[in-house]
């Protein structure tokens, strides 16, 4: 036990040191690891590519012998196919009719056939006819009935062009159009494997010369006979009958092609299943990675670890002389599963679970050493199991185990070096993301209850509005871009059109290459074989290749070396012409001019290898027609017997035509797609976007993307009229009130931008004490109304904050699940229940206020609020004034407080005012309708009361201080927000307070979330109902200046010009947008996905889902220096922002369209 403990300690210590090392020098270690991976994988280059291509062997030979070195010698069965390649070549006069040109060379085939058929083999044992030598075939495969007339059945497998005419000379002679007959059997469409024409002619279609345009003046075809036993006599006889001049063919070796097993679909199913299981395993494993910066990055690293360890194991095994014989694709999933991702996951989990405040190095080291014992134990167990497997002494399992062992070891190595380092980098990135976590650690935890203040080390200078508290954005409507635009934007964003063009081009090129009109593949293959030791061009007898390298079709080492001068993609038809090369001089590409008079027919080595140009499925498909598989069998291709025939021919333009057509089609396709793309994608990338984007302004490159939607969509409407900078801004959707530093209040129509009212009127001087006719006009009626009202003030319950819960009225159940806004409305509905009686009352103060309703023009307006057509203005002198927005008349004044009003909030019929001295005043606005109207109001009851009351000019309005919380805060209140029957105040004394105004009932399941931002850059999410802090995050280096919430996220902007988007439920930062200095002090949310920020002389629209800058709207030409300090989002998707002494009304029309 002690030994074990000691061992454990040692291992743990070693891992600890190793973790320290990895986290300290991440880059060198990663470099080292990659280098070692590459080194270990290097031997893999020597391995042949996996595949099921046929394997070639060449035996020298007059005599036929089966290659004996083949490992799986399954050739007990018969098939050795002998192929006789014959070429009938005919130079001709151009005067001949092209169709008849083919007649004479093709007709020679029949006589040749006759000769072959009548051949009698005689040896010592007696005389045998060809029937006994050749491969007898039976029926065609069922389903190939259409080939029945062409392919031989029940007899020798003897294939020649004569099969088109059932091998009957008479049919051939009476055929009016030979080409048509040949074409008749061609498959329509793109053929991938061997066509019938290839089969019958025995050479690829374009080399036959049987077409309308034969420039080569050569017709080539073969007669293929399949023999089941080797026979030399036929060959000698044919050679004797047709002595060919100019023959440089070597006929001393034959090629044996071994066909491996083909993989059928049925066999692929288990393979695919294992791969699916493998991917499910990887998916479920990587899903467990958590709490890291980049989940996908780590998952990728884990997979890379496993894969490269496998590669390393194969490479190492090869290095030590072990060639893999197993099918790699089959055992690969099992190897991955055996090696597993477990260790990686365990490591990650362990590191992540270490204390966060430690240094990265220490965290990595601790995590490693915590898991060291279990990792070592697991590894030892696995090694043991695999070693047991090794001793089963089954070769396949032994090999598997060997790979697995090496893979395990290299996997361990990679885990320790590669993955640990990646993990450390990831963790460090995460630390960087919240760098100032440790810095304000103590300042970030202010108690939610008003407690003793924590002394701050360096109290920051008071700013006008350092804290912003937002409840919910006023409008949550489905304001989205129209679908059409969204589709287009989606296309543009994903660069779909570009990609389609790219993919289309690639596919087109692929098709071109595959159909191979120019013989590129052959050329490439030739190049490859030239470089590889396989291609041994000159040798008389190729040595048998022992390695069993798969040679695909077209690998033609001898023929193509000197013939292809350039890898030109345009077709060079002469490159493969058979039989009329005059030598090296003719190797260049030949354009149109007619070739020299009578081409000499020569037989070069390229003819000998002519069968190589056939599709690699040529032989398998020929035999598959007779339901014979070539799998694990050989065919031996005997030397070609050349036969020369003279006749006449003509020229061929097909290749040029095909190439030109293909090229033209491709160009056209690209052009078409490009046009489509231009039409579909109106976004301008690059220079176009810059021309009207922010970059044009030079100094403000706010947009990283350089594009923006067409500028015509959004244009600001400037509201001019104020003489000085605008101080306060308020709106209720219909109207807009603004107040400038001069104390002038203007009311605008938020829809049209017309100025409705000016307070004071333009004609009246500010100093004119009694110059307000409006006031005078309204004043006389009031005293008569007010004087004889009974004082029923005590009946009004004003003690909102201390309402016992039993006082709550139970709402109808339908209201239970309504969002907080409805709770707000419900409060509005409920109000008359206590207030029906009081509607006719006039508080005494109201009358007093009414009589002396004098505007105070000396003090400046600090706060402005607008609701209905009532403007509430809080002044620095502590006065609260209520103005009629439409008429511009002062309705009442309340001078109860002495300290300046810093913030105002309307909440139904109440006004909450926060004062500079930290007190909070609640006013009640009483509307006294004229008596006739009163009947209407009382009778219908609660349901008809509109949430935002509208006041007519006849109403008498009074404002009464109902409650004052003297010491709400100890420092000036900077922020006041009201919603859902609650008032939230934030102050410089580091507290946030929530007052409940009304007994709105919130469903217990519902949460009310409050977000607050502080000067320390912290953003807190609070549960309003319980007062508990839901989350607490640091996102900004300086003060948080603005906060808005959507239903899913919280958006904050700070003094560091950073806009952070946080997930509302988890408090995780989704992303952040760095703006340049001066941007982003004000925020607004138009819809769930559209964010507005104010910048220097402009407002920017952002897509919240992706963080893209959609557009920047410039408010004016001249005043770049002025920043947008206030920004209001109206209900009709318009934005109001101040801009120096002007107001700017920006409509977002696309949003409006959707609204309609």
């Amino acid at each position, binding site marked *: 036990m002690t030994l074990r403990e000691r061992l454990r300690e040692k291992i743990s210590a070693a891992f600890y040191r190793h973790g320290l090392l990895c986290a300290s020098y991440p880059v060198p270690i990663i470099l080292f690891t990659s280098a070692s991976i590459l080194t270990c994988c290097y031997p893999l280059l020597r391995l042949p590519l996996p595949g099921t291509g046929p394997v070639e062997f060449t035996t020298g030979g007059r005599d036929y012998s089966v290659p004996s070195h083949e490992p799986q010698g399954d050739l007990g069965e018969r098939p050795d196919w002998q192929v006789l390649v014959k070429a009938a070549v005919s130079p001709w006069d151009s005067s001949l009719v092209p169709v008849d040109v083919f007649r004479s060379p093709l007709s020679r085939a029949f006589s040749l056939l006759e000769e072959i058929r009548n051949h009698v083999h005689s040896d010592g044992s007696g005389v045998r006819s060809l029937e006994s030598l050749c491969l007898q075939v039976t029926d065609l495969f069922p389903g190939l009935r259409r080939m029945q007339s062409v392919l031989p059945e029940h007899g020798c497998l003897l294939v020649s062009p004569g099969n088109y005419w059932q091998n009957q000379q008479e049919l051939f002679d009476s055929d009016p159009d030979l080409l048509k007959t040949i074409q008749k059997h061609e498959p329509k469409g793109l053929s991938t494997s061997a066509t019938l024409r290839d089969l019958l002619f025995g050479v690829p279609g374009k080399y036959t010369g049987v077409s309308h345009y034969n420039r080569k003046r050569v017709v080539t075809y073969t007669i293929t006979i399949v023999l089941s036993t080797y026979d030399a006599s036929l060959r000698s006889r044919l050679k004797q009958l047709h002595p060919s001049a100019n023959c440089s063919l070597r006929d001393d070796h034959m090629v044996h092609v071994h066909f491996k097993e083909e993989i059928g679909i049925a066999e692929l*199913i288990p393979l695919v299943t294992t791969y699916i*299981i*493998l991917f499910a395993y990887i998916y479920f494993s990587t899903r467990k990675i958590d709490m890291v910066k980049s989940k996908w990055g780590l998952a990728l690293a884990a997979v890379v670890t496993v894969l490269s360890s496998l590669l390393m194991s194969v490479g190492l095994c090869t290095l030590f002389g072990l060639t893999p014989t197993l099918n790699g694709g*089959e055992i690969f999933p099992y190897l991955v599963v055996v090696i*597993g991702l477990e260790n990686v996951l365990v490591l990650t989990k362990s590191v992540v679970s270490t204390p966060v405040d430690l240094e990265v190095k220490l965290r990595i080291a601790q995590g490693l050493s915590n898991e060291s014992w279990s990792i070592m134990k697991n590894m030892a167990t696995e090694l043991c199991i695999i070693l047991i497997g090794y001793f089963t002494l*089954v070769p396949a399992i032994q090999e598997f185990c060997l790979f697995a062992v090496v893979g395990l070891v290299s996997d361990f190595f990679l885990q320790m070096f590669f993955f640990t380092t990646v993990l450390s980098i990831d963790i460090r990135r995460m630390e960087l993301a919240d760098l100032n976590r440790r810095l304000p650690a103590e300042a970030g935890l202010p108690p939610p209850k008003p407690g003793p203040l924590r002394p701050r080390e360096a109290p920051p200078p008071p700013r006008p509005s350092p804290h912003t508290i937002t409840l919910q954005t006023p409008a949550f409507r489905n304001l989205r871009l129209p679908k059409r635009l969204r589709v287009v934007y989606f296309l543009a964003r994903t660069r779909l059109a570009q990609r389609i063009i790219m993919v289309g081009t690639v596919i087109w090129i692929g098709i071109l290459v595959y159909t191979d009109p120019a013989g590129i593949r052959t050329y490439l293959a030739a190049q490859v074989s030239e470089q590889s030791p396989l291609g041994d061009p000159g040798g008389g007898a190729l040595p048998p290749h022992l390695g069993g390298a798969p040679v695909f079709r077209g690998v033609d080492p001898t023929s193509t070396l000197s013939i292809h001068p350039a890898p030109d993609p345009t077709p060079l038809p002469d490159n493969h012409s058979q039989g009329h090369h005059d030598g090296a001089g003719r190797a260049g590409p030949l354009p149109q001019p007619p070739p020299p008079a009578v081409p000499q027919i020569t037989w070069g080595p390229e003819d000998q290898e002519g069968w190589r140009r056939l599709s690699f499925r040529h032989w398998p498909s020929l035999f*598959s027609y007779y339901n014979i598989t070539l799998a694990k069998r050989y065919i031996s291709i005997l030397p070609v017997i050349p036969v020369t025939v003279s006749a006449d021919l003509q020229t061929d333009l097909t290749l040029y035509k095909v190439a030109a057509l293909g090229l033209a089609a491709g160009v056209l396709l690209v052009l078409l797609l490009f046009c489509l793309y231009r039409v579909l994608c109106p976004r301008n990338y690059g220079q176009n976007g810059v021309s009207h984007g922010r970059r044009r302004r030079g100094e403000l490159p706010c947009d990283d993307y350089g594009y923006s939607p067409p500028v015509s969509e959004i244009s600001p409407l400037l509201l001019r009229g104020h003489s000085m900078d605008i101080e306060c801004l308020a709106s209720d959707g219909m109207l807009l009130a603004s107040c400038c530093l001069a104390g002038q209040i203007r009311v605008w129509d938020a829809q049209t931008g017309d100025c409705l009212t000016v307070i004071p009127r333009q004609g009246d001087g500010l100093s004119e004490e009694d110059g307000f006719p409006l006031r005078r006009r309204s004043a006389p009626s009031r005293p008569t109304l007010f004087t004889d009202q009974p004082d029923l003030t005590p009946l009004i319950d004003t003690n909102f904050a201390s309402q016992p819960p039993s006082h709550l009225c139970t709402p109808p159940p339908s209201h239970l699940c309504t969002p907080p806004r409805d709770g707000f409305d419900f409060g509005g509905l409920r109000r008359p229940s206590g207030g029906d009686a009081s509607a006719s009352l006039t508080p005494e103060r109201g009358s007093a206020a009414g009589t002396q309703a004098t505007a105070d023009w000396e003090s400046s307006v600090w706060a402005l609020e607008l609701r209905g057509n009532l403007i509430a203005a809080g002044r620095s002198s502590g006065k609260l004034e209520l103005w009629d927005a439409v008429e511009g008349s002062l309705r009442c004044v309340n001078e109860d407080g002495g300290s300046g009003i810093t913030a105002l909030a309307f909440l139904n019929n109440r006004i909450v005012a926060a004062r500079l001295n930290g007190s909070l005043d609640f006013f009640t606005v009483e509307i006294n309708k004229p008596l006739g109207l009163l009947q209407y109001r009382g009778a219908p009851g609660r349901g008809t009361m509109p949430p935002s009351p509208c006041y007519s000019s006849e109403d008498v309005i009074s404002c009464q201080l109902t409650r004052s919380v003297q010491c709400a805060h100890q420092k000036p209140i900077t922020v006041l927000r009201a919603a859902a029957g609650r008032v939230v105040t934030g102050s410089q004394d580091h507290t946030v307070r929530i007052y409940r105004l009304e007994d709105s009932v919130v469903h217990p*399941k519902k949460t009310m979330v409050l977000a607050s931002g502080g000067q320390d850059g912290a953003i807190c999410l609070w549960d309003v109902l319980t007062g508990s802090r839901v989350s607490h995050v640091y996102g900004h280096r300086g003060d948080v200046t603005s906060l808005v919430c959507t239903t899913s996220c919280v958006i904050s902007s700070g003094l560091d010009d950073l806009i952070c988007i946080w997930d509302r439920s988890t408090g995780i930062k989704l992303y952040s947008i760095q703006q340049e200095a001066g941007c982003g002090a004000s925020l607004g949310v138009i819809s769930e996905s559209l964010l507005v920020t104010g910048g220097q002389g402009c407002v920017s629209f952002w897509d919240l889902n992706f963080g893209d800058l959609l557009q920047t709207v410039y408010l004016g030409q001249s005043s770049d220096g002025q920043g947008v300090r206030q920004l209001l989002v109206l209900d009709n998707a318009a934005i109001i922002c101040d801009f120096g002494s002007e107001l700017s009304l920006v409509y977002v029309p696309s949003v409006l369209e959707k609204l309609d």
Partner: protein
Amino acid sequence: MSLTLTAMSNSAGTGGQQEWSGPGQTPGPSRGPYISVITNRTTNLLIRGAMLFSVGVFLSLVLNLLQVQRNVTLFPPDVISSIFSSAWWVPPCCGTASAGIGLLYPFIDRRLGEPHKFKREWSSVMRCVAVFVGINHASAKVDFANNVQLSLTLAALSIGLWWTFDRSRSGFGLGVSIALLATLATQVLVYNGVFQYTSPDFLYIRSWLPCIFFAGVITMGNIGRQLALYEYKFIQEKTHQD
């Protein structure tokens, strides 16, 4: 028969969806109709049974393909027919058996007390399935010197499977007994001439059959336990909430 089959596959499909949405919904306090479906004992049992059944059918088809001795033609005449190359009753039998086993394992776990805790996660289950397929693969493709070697190797592999993914005595006992029963059943079937092996080496059957059965039982039990975990989790949560 076909009617019930389609019904089962339908329910398996929906059951799959619920299972996927299950873990996502666990933290949420609200209980939608899905949760109530899952927590309902009989519905849950049905869903699990259907899922296990489909897994069993699928695995039997795939593994049967592996076992079919290859006579590869270049153009496989009919892929579908080669998938269903075995008799029609084999996949349903396998499905039923796997459903039974997959339900039996968690049941016995519950009877014995605590549910099985060892490596209870989907990645481990996937690994187990992969190893099981691998064992089948090895038995079908690897050329062994003799049948004894093959059987011994497979036995070692199966035990290794159990040790890696299960490690419970109840699982081992159940696996061995079911494997023996299944071998006996096959034996009876072969005796009665229902089918035959191409190269029987042990009393008309293949000697590696028990090992494959054992590995299959362990695998299906693993899947069944993992599926049962959801129900268990919900019940636990309910008790927590109550």
